């Protein structure tokens, strides 16, 4: 409340000439106040809806609670010990890496291929760009329902297409070994367009004279791609890898709709596991512990990527 008199405009603006300690302090106080004023509302919202739940989650991970009872029991590290020994959780971790690796890898590689094609002056290019990007905008739940029909081994579209080549359709969603590939296909189909559009923007940002210079030096198409396109796209690739890994790590909707984590946990990934433990099995503590594992993993991924990016990524 003293600030009202402290920050009179005249003293503040004429400060450089005199520079007394009192004035310096008042300037610092003023800066702080301003800082708090701007940052405060955000800090409160972040604190309330992000940091407090995170701290609460850590506390919950050391408790046993059925999501309902007024009583919570402290169990120390039992929840983590359970996860360590649980075969299902091990499977969930493997699934998460399998899924993330395949889904991110494929959508990036295919996204780049599509972007390269769409970067050519072909007929109907704009329409194709729109079609490729469209799935990104659709809701995961709706996509899941439609693809469940497409995957039907007897009446599904995919079975028909495979039938033209005399290939029998696998029983995609009922077999543990096929369910995850099915989910990956859907995710790649959904996210390919996003990667393609971002790559396309990147491709168009590469200066033509680099290619011309390479041509003069006698580089063929492959070498131009390797030595110009790929390095010039590396910041784009980096951005896509980070965002895709973080988003596929947290995938839920399509899995929930298509397989419910099954059959026999074949498509059970970390976020699904957290939800399932908390809301289907009423083990809030165990779910909190698994959520913490997810948090640490994502933290590690982010740190590794930051490190890597400083050294390898070429920023134009």
């Amino acid at each position, binding site marked *: 409340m003293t600030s009202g008199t402290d920050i009179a405009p005249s003293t503040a603006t004429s400060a450089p000439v005199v520079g007394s300690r009192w004035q310096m302090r008042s300037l610092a106080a003023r800066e702080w106040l301003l800082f708090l*004023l701007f940052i405060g509302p955000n800090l409160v919202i972040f604190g309330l809806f992000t940091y407090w739940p995170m701290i609460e989650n850590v506390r919950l991970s050391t408790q046993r609670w059925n*999501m309902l009872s007024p009583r919570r029991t402290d169990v120390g590290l039992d929840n983590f010990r359970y996860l360590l020994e649980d075969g299902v959780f091990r499977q969930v971790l493997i699934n998460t890496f399998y899924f993330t690796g395949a889904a991110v890898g494929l959508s990036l590689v295919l996204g780049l291929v599509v972007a390269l094609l769409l970067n050519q002056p072909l007929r109907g290019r704009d329409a194709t760009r729109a079609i490729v990007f469209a799935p990104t905008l659709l809701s995961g739940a709706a996509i899941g329902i439609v693809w469940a029909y497409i995957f039907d081994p007897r*009446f599904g579209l995919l079975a028909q297409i495979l039938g033209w080549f005399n290939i029998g359709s696998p029983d995609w969603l009922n077999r543990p070994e096929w369910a995850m590939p099915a989910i990956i296909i859907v995710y790649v189909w959904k996210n390919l367009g996003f990667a393609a559009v971002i790559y396309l923007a990147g491709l168009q940002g590469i200066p033509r004279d680099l290619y011309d210079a390479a041509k003069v030096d006698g580089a063929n198409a492959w070498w131009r791609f390797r030595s110009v396109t790929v390095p010039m796209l590396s910041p784009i690739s980096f951005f896509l890898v980070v965002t895709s890994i973080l988003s596929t790590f947290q995938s839920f909707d399509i899995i929930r709709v298509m397989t*419910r984590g*099954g059959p*026999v946990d074949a498509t059970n990934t970390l976020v699904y596991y957290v939800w399932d433990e908390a809301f*289907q*099995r009423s*083990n809030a503590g165990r779910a909190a512990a698994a959520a913490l594992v997810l948090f640490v993993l994502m933290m590690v991924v982010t740190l590794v990527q930051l490190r890597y990016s400083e050294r390898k990524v070429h920023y134009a």
Partner: protein
Amino acid sequence: MMSDAKHTTSRRALLKGAAGAAAGAAALGVSKSSRAFDAPAFIRQTGSAVEVLFWSSWGTGTPNGEAEQEVIRRFNESQQDVVLRHEFQGTYDETAQKLSAALQARQTPALSLLSEANWFRFYTSEFLAPMDDFIAANELDTTDFVDSFLTEGQRNDQQWWMSFARSTPLFYYNKQAWQEAGLPDRAPETYTEFAEWGPKLVKKSGNEVSRWGFSHPPSADFISWYFQGTVWAHGGEFSDDQFAVKITEPNSIAAGEWLRSTVVDGWAAPSQDRVLDFLNGVTSSIMQSTGTLGRLTTEATFEFGNGFLPAETNPGCPTGGAGMAILATAPPEQQEAAFKYIAFATSPEITTFWSQNTGYMPVRKSAIASPEMTEYYKTNPLFQTAVQQLETTKPQDPARIYIPGGDRIIGDGLERITVNQAEVQATFEEIQGQLESEAQPVIDALSAIEG
């Protein structure tokens, strides 16, 4: 210089604004805490109708949802004291999940539909209101209720949960497939007989099976509910009434071996959506709730029959479905009003209407014996199977429905058997261990509240 002065004034204005916002937030905080669980003013006024919020699990557009809307419409028109407001919350399990969350947020409905596998944990967490005073005040004739439906909702000499949409699993079969296989037009009487019939129902084109004899649900579609019948029929059980787990006893294991043999012998397969598979002719038979009879009747393009679940050393069939519970967090006048709807919805007239439109069983003896139902069964014999089977049914073992997650612990093990042909003994031992460790907190909670 000018701009600097301007800045300062705007900062002042901002500060003032912030102070105002803080005061506003504080005011909000105060008003929020003081309003918790208080009825809106119009409800406290005498003479006006009490509004009751009811959470339920059937969406409009489905046969069951439409029937429920009609029940609610009739209730609201039948009297002036209570206005029931219905909110659809998703499946049974989603309804229970949302109610858990609502209880944490202290924003609950007064009345909720809860499945037979979900109400108990709300009871052990002491969130349900006892109904006996309401039953007395409304002079509800409890002796007319089907006994097992009534007693399943009782603990500690009080009614906590009232049966409304009760079901049992039934055996449904595709008559055309049955005919092609040269089987008599009825459900198999024993599991042994079913295992003899099963391979005859399989149709193959090359190595691809185009029609299975039977389809197993996944864990998330309650395989353990159907298997409850199988395990009883073999003389086993999941647990006794005191939560002692019995799934590794020889008779329970025998039931598990039967389950495994269906997939090892190649006539049954797991399916993510076996109702759809049945409707598409991909599977010849399924076990499915009576509550699905309405849908099958509307959607099947072939003739199908139904029957009791098979027996083995003895018959075995669990009850299932849902009932209603009143939340103890609701103000007394809303609790009272909520019960009026329970009384109405379970009345002989309404339970008859509900049953005829959904396939769920009437909860009143007088309704089952009524001329309307007798007449109805004559023209719709499939609807009668459940009621006839009722004699052989009983409420499920506590291990499945009273241990939180018990359904999934058992179901996950069974799914490993139907999908991966896992060994029964080892799988059931794992289930036993998990059930035992999860049972302990429930036993503790029960001894705390029931003594």
